[in-house]
């Protein structure tokens, strides 16, 4: 085991992927809890498909995917929330439409330009080879900002998510917090997409919070547990993906699924 880890860490791309991955897992699990509690889980999924669409634009143009995707996905998050507020299109339908459309547009652009190559496949299902050195710095800085914002607004986020109507009646600007959550989620999705893949990144947002909620019943404990769980699942997933040579994203999701089932089973048995 120790030899394995030694071998793993001797590759600089693995070290880069682990730094980025730990940051992203932490932030994703933090953002995931309010999203899951507000029944917004699918926003992550929708935005990641938008992320794929923007990649399809960036790759043929030879532009840095991060710099193109982050603003575009943030814009999509902004629009999604706006659509939710107007009652003409239902929120879940809006997400489904945006998600499929951007996926379709992405696939069309790719097939017309570069074609389905290994690069694109990595974007879809994740790869630890993908992270470049400059991206590491960007990811660490952005994650630190997301983390700091979450910490600063932690109590307020609880307040808003716990009882939106009371928060609104007593004068809290609900839209601001919805927007903040959506925009931060958009950023984290784009960053995490490289390792997890566009198709699988939303699991990083949903699983840790949902898993922790099976056993823990206070907000603080769920937040802490999902952070720890998220990082552990990520690291385990990377090791497994390395050993069995499977896509990193899929292996991380599998570990997350396993931990969810374990927690679910324990809560079922103990009758909590």
């Amino acid at each position, binding site marked *: 085991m120790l030899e394995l880890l030694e071998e793993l860490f001797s590759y600089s791309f693995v070290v880069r992927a682990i730094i980025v991955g730990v940051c992203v897992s932490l932030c994703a699990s933090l953002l995931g809890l309010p999203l899951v509690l*507000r029944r917004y889980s699918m926003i992550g999924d929708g935005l990641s498909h938008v992320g794929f669409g923007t990649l399809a634009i960036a790759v043929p143009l030879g532009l840095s995917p991060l710099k193109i995707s982050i603003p575009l996905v943030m814009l999509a998050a902004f629009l999604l929330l706006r659509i939710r507020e107007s009652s003409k299109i239902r929120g879940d339908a809006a997400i489904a439409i945006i998600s499929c459309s951007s996926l379709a547009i992405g696939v069309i652009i790719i097939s017309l330009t570069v074609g389905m190559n290994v690069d694109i496949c990595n974007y879809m299902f994740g790869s630890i080879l993908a992270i470049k050195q400059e991206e590491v710095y960007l990811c660490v800085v952005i994650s630190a900002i997301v983390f700091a914002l979450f910490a600063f607004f932690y109590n307020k986020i609880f307040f808003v998510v*716990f*009882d939106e109507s*009371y928060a609104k009646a007593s004068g*809290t600007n609900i839209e601001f917090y919805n927007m903040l959550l959506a925009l931060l989620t958009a950023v984290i999705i784009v960053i995490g997409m490289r390792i997890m893949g566009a198709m699988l990144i939303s699991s990083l947002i949903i699983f840790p919070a949902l898993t922790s909620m099976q056993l823990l019943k206070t907000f603080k404990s769920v937040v802490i547990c999902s952070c720890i769980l998220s990082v552990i699942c990520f690291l385990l997933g990377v090791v497994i993906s390395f050993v069995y040579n499977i896509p990193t994203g899929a292996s991380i999701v599998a570990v997350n699924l396993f931990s969810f089932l374990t927690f679910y089973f324990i809560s079922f048995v103990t009758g909590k």
Partner: protein
Amino acid sequence: MKYEATLALKDCSFELAAGNFLAVFGENGSGKSTLLKSIAGLIKPSSGTLNFNGIKKSEIGYMAQQTLVQKDFPASVYEAVLSGTLCKHKYFYFYTTNDKKIADKNLELLGMEKLKHKSFQELSVGQRQRVLLARMLCAEAKLLLLDEPTSGLDAVATKQLNSTLKDINLQGVTIIMISHDISGTIDFCDKVLQLGNRHFFGSREEYNVGIA
């Protein structure tokens, strides 16, 4: 006031003094909840004005009929109650020692101090209502808008909650409460608003004369 494109309530006008306890009665669909939501600022009335006479937005407490969202919400009683103090914070969202004291005091006031570390989802309906009330007291609410707080409670719990509300009211908090239970509510309110084809607004005595 419009609600889903049909007028839910119109020509309703009333005035309360600080410390009044207004009971709102009316059939289903007569616009009680709409009225309360408009006062709370959750929906915009299509016409008309609201004047709060110096009550700040942060001093308004609104309690909806129990929603599904709260049922699987991971939160301890203490976390929920303490969060009420945030209404008084403007740009800084960390709890002070004073906030914690206030939360403890209000937990005690509502007889919930033993359940402090319990999970909100494990509480009975009546206990939850108390937690939500304690939270609003932490916000130093001056106006409580309560949408059928006693629905789903048994007779004993209803009575307890009503008397707690009266205690809060006696400390100068204005309460507007929707109720189905006219006979249980009429004894401790001092103003009555009856919504229907013709609205009635007046003191409890006038209302009693009216139905006698």
